[in-house]
């Protein structure tokens, strides 16, 4: 188990390293950058003090150096103008647009992003497992057909369109505004019990919207898995020996069918994070989604790069956790090598 863990951690580190190079390449793709655009603008205005400041920033972040050096400085693998100070050292860079350190700009958004995604994962499991068990044990019943149908709709309805529709109808019918993650009056306030309550009530709609597609695919897969297991002889034997239906179900086939379920978290996460970014934009949730969009539009490179790294980290760590869980539950995985 230890060697399995170590191997997975090394793979993850390498993956993150490659992703960081990819992310840096992508944020460097657009011609020009925020500061040189700014300097041109300032030159036109003749604001010398501001130009001096922008030029200082260029020096400060080594933006006058070749791209590969900039990359190494950014991740903290090479000393920059002020020593080793990059992602590895916990320095996330400077947001030129906000004129603040990236860490201050993203702030709570990181935790809220994590929270929204975690809530969606929990929602998917809590909803999908019982429905899948119901559908599989009562195959071809009306409830099964309804679940399958809703599953199809959930799979095909794009989450951001669903968010738009909900935004419109909830406002129209109930007068509730579901935008944001807490009432406007709590913005910038310290975390109090009331604010947390407001947060939780605002979390319901985004969680459902983000989790719906994942729930649908989970139900489908789990139902198929469970149906396979239910046809096997050990289940028939267990029932024939007089084990109650609930116990016979939960003790053997259910556990067998859970296996791919955990492995699926890894496949699910990238889609979930994608969906949460998009839905955040529509519902104007204070997650990293809206910040990312404006950072990309303004070529605020360190901010955009950091957020891209963060969402990648979210999925990569999620996959690691699902792998560890799987290895813990199913010994065949860690015995048979990493894959």
């Amino acid at each position, binding site marked *: 188990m230890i060697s399995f863990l170590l191997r997975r951690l090394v793979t993850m580190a390498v*993956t993150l390293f*490659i*992703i960081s190079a*990819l*992310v840096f390449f*992508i*944020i460097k*793709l*657009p*011609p020009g950058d925020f500061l040189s655009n700014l300097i041109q603008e300032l030159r036109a205005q003749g604001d010398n003090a501001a130009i001096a400041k922008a030029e200082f920033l260029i020096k400060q972040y080594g933006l006058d150096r070749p791209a590969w050096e900039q990359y190494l400085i950014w991740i903290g693998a090479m000393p920059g103008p002020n020593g080793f100070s990059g992602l590895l050292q916990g320095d996330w860079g400077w947001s030129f647009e906000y004129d603040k350190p990236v860490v201050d700009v993203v702030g709570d958004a990181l935790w809220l992003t994590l929270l929204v995604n975690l809530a969606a994962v929990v929602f998917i499991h809590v909803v999908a497992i019982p429905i899948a068990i119901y559908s599989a044990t009562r195959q071809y019943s009306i409830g099964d057909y309804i679940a399958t149908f809703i599953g*199809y*709709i959930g*799979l*095909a*309805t*794009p989450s*951001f*369109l669903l968010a*738009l*529709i909900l*935004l*419109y109808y909830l*406002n*129209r019918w109930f007068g509730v505004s579901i*935008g944001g993650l807490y009432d406007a009056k709590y913005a910038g306030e310290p975390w109090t019990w009331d604010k947390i309550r407001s947060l939780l009530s605002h979390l319901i709609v985004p969680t459902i919207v983000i989790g719906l597609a994942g729930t649908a695919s989970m139900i489908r897969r789990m139902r198929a898995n469970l149906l396979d297991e239910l046809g096997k002889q050990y289940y028939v034997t267990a029932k024939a020996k007089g084990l109650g239906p609930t116990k016979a179900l939960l003790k053997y086939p259910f556990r067998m069918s859970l296996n791919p379920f955990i492995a699926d978290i*890894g*496949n699910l*996460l*990238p*889609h979930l*994070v*994608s*969906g949460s*970014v*998009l839905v955040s*934009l*529509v519902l104007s949730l204070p997650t990293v989604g809206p910040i*990312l*969009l404006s950072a*990309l*539009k303004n*070529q605020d490179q360190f901010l*955009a790069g950091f*957020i*891209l790294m963060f*969402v*990648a980290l*979210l*999925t*990569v760590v999620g*996959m690691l956790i699902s792998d560890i869980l799987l290895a813990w539950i199913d010994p065949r995985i860690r015995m048979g090598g990493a894959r």
Partner: protein
Amino acid sequence: MNTLLRTRHYVDPSPFDPGTTEPIGTENEDFYRASSWQLIWWKFRRHKVALAAAFVLLAFYLMVPFVEVIAPYNQTKRNGDFLYAPPQGIHLMHEGRFVGPFVYPYKYSFDIETFRRVYTVDTSQPQPIRFFCRADAYEFWGVWNTNVHLVCPPENGTMFILGTDRLGRDLFSRIIYGARISLTIGLIGIAVSFTLGLFFGGLAGYLGGWVDHVIQRMIEILRSLPELPLWLALSAALPANWSPILVFFGITIILGLLDWPGLARAVRSKLLSLREEDFVKAAELMGASKQRVIARHLIPNFMSHLIASATLSIPSMILGETALSFLGLGLRPPVTSWGVLLNEAQNLAAVQLHPWLLFPMVPVIVVVLAFNFMGDGLRDAADPYH
């Protein structure tokens, strides 16, 4: 031994009819003689929902070359007197009497108190809709100048089936024009991703060794990345001074660029498992060359699976374009796609007052659902021998 066999090529090039050596019963003759594509079609045909979905898609795609003819208005035609006009109902009965499809004209007034345009329906005089008629002029396929439309608004009247937008452009016509872009972007995107997937998956499955290893790691890394943030970043990198056509191709390539890993993985695993099959071994033992094994035995066997999985990934492309354009990072006006149309619905205040701006999401959902249903049917039918 291999070289020995290859020198003596035993594959008879003339067509071989198994029926000559071992006659088949007459009742199942059709089934045994059918080609695998025919079997796939027979199996697919039984899947009624998938078949219906296929017809829906066929209808949508048949519309694509003829949007100018089908749309009652031109996509850029501005009706300055009818900004944000609500949908105009099409009626058949006037005062209890059948008069054929017609619309009631709009009377427009300005509400001084709310500063909103108010459209009232004048039900006294029905205006019949015209068919195969002349209205807005357009250049058909960039060659012919004509003004023939399938349906046109009444003479001196209007016909806004789904209302108009902030510039008074007919939403129904714009949705039809948008279909051209939104539907083709999925096909071009899947072509890009299909080519890449076939290439990398084929390389990995065929060469094996370190190439396989590198490609597998590449696939894993790309699959672990959330697509949308990367799409956003890549489309933000498209230069702002590109022409709309270049942006269109840029977006398509971006969509295809991140989609291939799934297909490549399918190709690789299919190649690996098929290589072990008895019929491949038999072909090799009979001295068939590598090209022949690949072209005649391997590709036909996994092509149907590939087409099925490609069909299932078209919706994600269409949705990707819609999402990007909706956020303002994808296609830009004057190009009209469903995402560009939905971009106007981003402003919640506008949607509250003019809910018909949300309508472009209906064709998006219908097409995505249809592709999903058809893809499911294809996937079930892809292996007709089981």
